[in-house]
């Protein structure tokens, strides 16, 4: 497959402070690639280098087959860009601003702007400086998407958007990919983009920690499990779960007439389902895998946070259940 973005050994220093320490990754054409990292990890700097807004100190960049340093307006017309900190303070309406960017980077299909505005529920006739943060973000998304560029570079696209609009945005990303567009987006949390991204790079302090497909992360990911059952003691249920490969962190929430347990599952769900099949289940919740937790578990130390909380929480509840 052809690559839409190739980054090799990208370094960037501001003065004596190096913020990117040699980054390598590739984004295949027609895929959605997410770069995840906390604020200050270098996501914005990387994206700005791709757009030739800032210039790398070292390394090679290829964007849609060209060096962004020399691609000029012709290259940038093929890219839709959403800056991380979007400021729109001009005394113009959203519509006029979009018309302006159409004049610069167009052409835009007729009716396309209204269609996007309607999808995102944005009033284009209000002055941009009076728009809320979320509405400015919507305007930013429209200007990036409207000319249906080959490559979308979106810096924290979901920031400021309410959950409904976030879902709409993710649908727009899926559609863009289905049309063959490439999407390169960033977020400080994986959960916001894991639904849309094929592949993610985890960036920490100017270095890429890992690049993995979301599927691969999903396989190694942990799922939170909760179920309630009748006709079994808490001890038996715990023992039953303990024999299932990949299950850990078993906690008994209530015991008595029926038991309720939570646990964490890592790996395949087949053996678990088989084990549970013999029980008289009254409730079963197997959550979506939490990719973020798995990534942090693999590459950081914060990953045990939730489990740690869970085990602390267990003690009083066990006491409570023994009183019952």
């Amino acid at each position, binding site marked *: 497959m052809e690559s839409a973005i190739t980054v090799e050994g990208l370094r960037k220093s*501001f003065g004596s402070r190096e913020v990117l320490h040699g980054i390598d990754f590739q984004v295949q054409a027609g895929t959605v690639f997410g770069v995840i990292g906390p604020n200050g990890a270098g996501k914005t700097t990387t994206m*700005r280098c791709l*757009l*030739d*807004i*800032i*210039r790398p100190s070292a390394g090679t960049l290829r964007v849609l087959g060209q060096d962004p340093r020399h691609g*000029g*307006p*012709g290259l*940038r*017309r093929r*890219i839709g*860009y959403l*800056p991380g*900190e*979007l*400021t*729109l*303070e*001009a*005394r*113009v309406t959203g519509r006029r601003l979009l018309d*302006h*960017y*159409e*004049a*610069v*980077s*167009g*052409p835009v299909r007729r009716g396309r702007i209204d269609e996007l505005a309607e999808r995102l529920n944005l009033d284009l006739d209000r002055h941009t400086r009076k728009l809320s943060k979320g509405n400015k973000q919507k305007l*930013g998304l429209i*200007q990036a998407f409207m000319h249906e560029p080959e490559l979308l570079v979106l810096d924290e696209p979901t920031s400021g958007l309410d959950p409904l609009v976030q879902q709409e945005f993710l649908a727009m990303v899926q559609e863009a990919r289905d049309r063959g567009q490439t999407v390169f987006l960033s977020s400080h949390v994986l959960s916001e983009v894991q639904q849309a991204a094929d592949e993610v790079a985890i960036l920490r302090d100017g270095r890429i920690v890992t690049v993995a497909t979301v599927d691969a992360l999903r396989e190694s990911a942990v799922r939170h499990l909760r179920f309630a059952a009748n006709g079994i003691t808490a001890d038996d249920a715990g023992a039953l779960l303990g024999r299932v490969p990949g299950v850990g962190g078993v906690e008994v929430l209530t015991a008595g007439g029926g038991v309720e347990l939570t646990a964490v599952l890592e790996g395949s769900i087949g053996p678990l389902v088989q084990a549970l099949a013999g029980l008289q289940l009254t409730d079963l919740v197997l959550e979506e895998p939490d990719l973020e937790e798995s990534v942090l578990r693999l590459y950081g130390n914060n990953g045990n946070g939730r489990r740690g909380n869970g085990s602390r929480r267990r003690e009083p509840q066990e006491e409570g259940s023994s009183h019952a």
Partner: protein
Amino acid sequence: MRSPMPLFRRAFVDSWRSTLGWAAGLGAAIALYLPIYPSIGGSTQMQQMINALPPEMTKALNYDQIASGPGYTQATVFGLIGFLLMTIATVSWGAAAVGGDEESGQLELTLAHGVTRVQLVFERALAIVLRVVLLAVLVFVLILALNDSAHLSIDSMHLFGAAVEFAGLALLSGTAALFVGALSGRKSYGLAAGAAVGVLGYVFNAVGRQSPDLDWLLNFSPYHWAYGNSPVANGADWASAGWLWGISAGLVLLSSIALQRRDVGS
């Protein structure tokens, strides 16, 4: 549809409020000053009063020529209030064009679109030039309209020359602001540079005229280049007009080079 010079059109059209405001200010100043010339500049009483002022002060304010219509127009409109308004306008436009836009974070988005940095600087500079020319035309027309009724006896070709110097002088401050804004990415630095060109030019002129020992200062005063020979009375010194416009053009070119060579918004 892609249309020619979108950045120029946006910079020009979106600033119509500001352009109109400055036009109203200049128009009001002219309408206030010039009609009263017959009762002030031309009267012997006024001349006596000016003679009573310290000569340093009359020289600094260019009031030494106030007794004639062209001299009065030169000193009041072109030399003082018009110069002040026009300089403030161009400096604010120049500083905002790149430095201000970058500081507010909007330049990043524009540069991510299908434009070059050189194109951006040139189109925005052109929008400033056009606004300056429009304001200078307004000043020219208004003065010409009041020429007879206010008994100014100004030669229209001389007035034209003065308007060209007037525009060039303002443009020099404005392009200095543009250049420093483009170099530093900071609006305040641009404002400071533009204001410095305007104010120092005025001060060097005022001080340089005080004595022959200090008249070397006049060489560093764009204000003196423009107005040293009283263009409203004597016609423009076209060489000096050429310097004002030429240096302005050079500063626009330097602005584009400065912006081309650096990181934006970092």
